[in-house]
């Protein structure tokens, strides 16, 4: 069984032109089978990106990519709930990131995203009975744990969050607005200024976290670089690569070369390290440790 690659949804508030340029290039050049599109973090951003998704989806599908429509992780407003319902009615695969979407999508195939709390095989089986077709478990789970769940659920594809700043938390409060002395309701979209999220340092100037509106991510960049045999042994079928502003086509090429056994983990680490990344590489979660621990292939 070969390992498939997924490009996860973009967490950041990229302007429509940037989104278009980014996904057109992915469509043409990135060796990934599946691409997630759609706003996941903040419903207030949707009016900006909504107009460009149809052409992006068309271009990706023309490029032979399977498109997955990702849905909001923390819907509250009626408008956001309606958006989820509409996306769930689509014939394409949909990614569910909040239980809110479950009734609208029940019985039809969906991807269970990392914002759902699927921590064990009993919960995974419940979602599979309701239509889960692929599962990307919460980022804090180790490969061993994901493997234990995957072994117990042989009919679905398990996906590991393998690259990008780690999605660590969501809040009702917008931290970008708070930082700029604004309220969420009149936020002025200051999150747009930080295309990789804004790094949060400790008082001792140590990079630690990153803010992205209502989301908190790691400052460091996840890099799970397991040899393909290890993933196959653990019944892990897919790797999820999460968009950052670095050259994502090169990132996907590195993971493709790693997954096909062309290069070793150590070489993949060196190549990733040569890119303009927003933070150092970590993989502690994959090893069952603190997420911030430096990537071990070094």
């Amino acid at each position, binding site marked *: 069984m070969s390992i498939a690659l997924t490009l996860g949804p973009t967490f950041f508030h990229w302007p429509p032109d940037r989104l278009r340029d980014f996904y057109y290039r992915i469509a043409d050049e990135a060796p990934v089978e599946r691409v997630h599109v759609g706003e996941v973090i903040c419903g207030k951003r949707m009016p900006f990106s909504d107009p460009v998704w149809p052409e992006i989806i068309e271009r990706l599908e023309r490029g032979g990519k399977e498109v997955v429509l990702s849905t909001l992780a923390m819907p509250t407003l009626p408008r956001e709930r309606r958006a989820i319902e509409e996306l769930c009615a689509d014939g394409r695969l949909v990614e569910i990131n909040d239980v809110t979407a479950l009734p609208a999508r029940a019985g039809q195939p969906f991807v269970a995203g990392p914002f759902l709390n699927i921590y064990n095989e009993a919960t995974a089986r419940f979602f599979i009975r309701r239509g889960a077709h692929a599962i990307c478990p919460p980022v804090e789970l180790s490969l061993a744990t994901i493997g234990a769940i995957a072994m117990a659920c042989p009919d679905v594809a398990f996906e590991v969050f393998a690259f990008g700043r780690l999605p660590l938390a969501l809040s009702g409060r917008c931290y970008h607005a708070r930082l700029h002395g604004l309220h*969420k309701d009149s936020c002025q979209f200051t999150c747009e200024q930080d295309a990789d999220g804004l790094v949060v340092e400790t008082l001792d100037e140590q990079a630690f*976290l990153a803010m992205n509106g209502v989301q908190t991510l790691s400052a460091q960049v996840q890099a799970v670089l397991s040899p393909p045999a290890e993933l196959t042994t653990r019944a892990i079928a897919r790797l999820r690569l999460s968009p950052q502003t670095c050259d994502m086509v090169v990132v996907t090429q590195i993971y493709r070369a790693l997954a096909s056994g062309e290069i070793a983990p150590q070489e993949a680490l060196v190549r990733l390290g040569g890119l303009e990344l927003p933070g150092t590489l970590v993989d502690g979660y994959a090893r069952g440790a603190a997420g911030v621990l430096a990537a071990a292939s070094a």
Partner: protein
Amino acid sequence: MTAQQRMELVCPAGTPATLRAAVTAGADAVYCGFSDDTNARNFPGLNFSPREMAEGIRFAHGHGSKVLVAINTFARAGDTDPWRRAADTAVACDADAVIAADIAVLDHMAQNHPKTRLHLSVQAAAATPEAIGFYLEAFAVRRVVLPRVLSVQEIKALNSAIAVETEAFVFGGLCVMMEGRCHLSSYATGRSPNLNGVCSPPEAVSYDESGQATTARLAGFTIDRYDPGSPAGYPTLCKGRFTAGGKTGYLFEDPVSLNAGTMIVALKEAGITALKIEGRQRGKGYVSEVVRAFRRAVDAAELGRDSVEIEGILAALSEGGRQTTGAYRKTWR
């Protein structure tokens, strides 16, 4: 559900002595958990053995109070039995309800103990009519503990759209992140609320007194720094002082705790069935004092007294430590 019955006061108990103190001080219900990682306050020296739970429930029932057992972490992959056993034990102890977040636990309860009330933990982060409707349809939950991200107006709209009781936090620790969806603690320390029932765990904490200041660290990360003579706080990750975009401060949340005492009347009008006090890690003296004050405040609210009078009743609780009404007021966001 827009409930017009008397609001229930739900109080924390980390030990049998605290349970008795809360009941004596006027708690309508007490919530507590077993001494293991099945509950979200898994701290050394806290919580109940099965025998203590049975005795505590007998005591509470004898005084007209209920006991709600929290089994609200997420069951370990490949080792889900302890969570099922905890649920079975709670039922055997005659618990009035089980509070759960993990679908594995909810499903086990719905399949095997349909007669025991099931409350959806705040850790499940259900905040929309659709999400709550799902938990109602799938597991027949009787009450939903609301995430601390909703304003009172949103709670009112939500309650008019759902057919299940809702419980809201009124006092104690305040999560600024949506509960049950926060991995900050495991990112720094390897241990988290969902996996281990702990946040910013004590074994990862260190205080470094050097030069002109005391530095509070979590797993080596500086969370805050204090001048000599000023008391050093516990380094809870989201309430630390950090720098971003050239600004230094409490970027996520100030070191405050929740006190929505002034909003009891508004919460009742928004259709809330039960008010919850946080603090299973607190001692019995603290719990007694807080429960007694809230007992009087809730009774005053039920008698139609205004929020100025209720504020007066709760005034003593605001001494020392800064407080906020959190997301209940929209400007918090």
